[in-house]
């Protein structure tokens, strides 16, 4: 058994969901995402590793394979891929039934967007003063490299969570190269890889 699998199995086994009533669950979901909103640097993808940690390891909303599935669905669906937060919220609320799952999904999405939206409104209204400020220059140039490091860490984390067999990893690396070298829509990659999965060439 490859070490990645062992890690995933250990995570799944050690994760005991907190006992909360349905409203408590909803508040937990919303509080979690409210607190993370202002840390979504570089367009929000920097938060994916943290989403994984919270929803799979800490709160046990999802199994690792489910997290990977939801990431793929959010990437495939039209619209901003950061809407994955809605799907995570839905996973958190699913044990309480579809109605709560939907409520939890909307709650999660509103929670992750609200603080960054408010900050963005303030930023737009004061942009003329901010533009020349040394704070802005330092923020932009200083946080850029950190964002770069986080994005690489996120890529590795998602690859670990996908946890496919060797052909699957080859497909992942190939898609990575094609994403960088061509302008082919990623939907094609997902469709082809989905076909390979259906025929059993890629499995997990």
């Amino acid at each position: 058994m490859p070490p990645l699998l062992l890690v995933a199995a250990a995570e799944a086994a050690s994760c005991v969901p907190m006992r909360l009533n349905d409203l408590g669950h909803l508040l937990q979901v919303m509080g979690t995402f409210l607190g993370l909103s202002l840390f979504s640097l570089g367009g929000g993808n920097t938060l994916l590793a943290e989403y994984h940690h919270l929803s799979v390891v800490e709160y046990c909303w999802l199994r690792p394979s489910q997290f990977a599935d939801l990431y793929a669905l959010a990437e495939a669906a039209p619209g901003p891929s950061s809407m994955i937060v809605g799907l995570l919220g839905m996973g958190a609320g699913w044990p309480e039934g579809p109605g709560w799952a939907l409520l939890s999904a909307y709650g999660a999405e509103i929670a992750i967007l609200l603080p960054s939206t408010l900050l963005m409104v303030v930023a737009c209204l004061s942009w003329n003063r901010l533009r020349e400020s040394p704070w802005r220059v330092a923020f932009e140039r200083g946080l850029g490299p950190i964002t770069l490091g986080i994005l690489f860490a996120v890529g590795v984390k998602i690859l670990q969570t996908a946890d496919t067999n060797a052909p699957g990893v080859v497909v992942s690396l190939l898609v990575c190269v094609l994403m960088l070298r061509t302008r082919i829509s990623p939907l094609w990659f997902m469709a082809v890889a989905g076909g390979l999965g259906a025929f059993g060439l890629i499995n997990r």
Partner: protein
Amino acid sequence: MTDPPAPAATAAPPGLGQLFTGMLMVALSAFGGGLSAWSQRIIVEQRRWMSNEEFLTGLTVARLFPGPNQINMAVYVGTFFRGLPGALAALAGMLLVPFTLLMGIGLLYFQFHSLPALDRVLAGVVAAAAGMALSMGFKILDEYRKDPVALLLAAVTFVLMTFFHVRLVPLVLVAGPLAMAWYWPRRSQPGPPAGEPR
């Protein structure tokens, strides 16, 4: 709300309803990708709400501040004309259709994901999605090629997260200020220190 000093080419500033429908159009047009190109086409070229320069400023602000870029862009357009209510109207227009669709997909997923056939297809899709995630860092790597300090910062960040399992929030709170101090603009500005925001 005062009108921005608009050049003659721009149309009247949109109301809340127009902001909502405008962003709805952007979101619908962008099914399949190219969201920021579509928002430029609709907001600048078709509806003439903004000049191209104002739009590009919006992209800069949207990328700089936390939050998803495209969503921040909607917030910028809304705020530009109608402040906070405008931001919320634009945001609702941008998200209404894609989010509703995603919720449908999510409900189907949680209902049926244990079906073996679906799980097998998803295993393949997940492999492709992992490749997309892996490409995100490489996409912006070029900007930092000539800056060894930036590469070192990125490498340390990567190692801390991947091998030492340092969490995002403490990492950003410690490394962020250090990096900002290093990159603080050195050349002293002429004149007295102007009133800084905050």
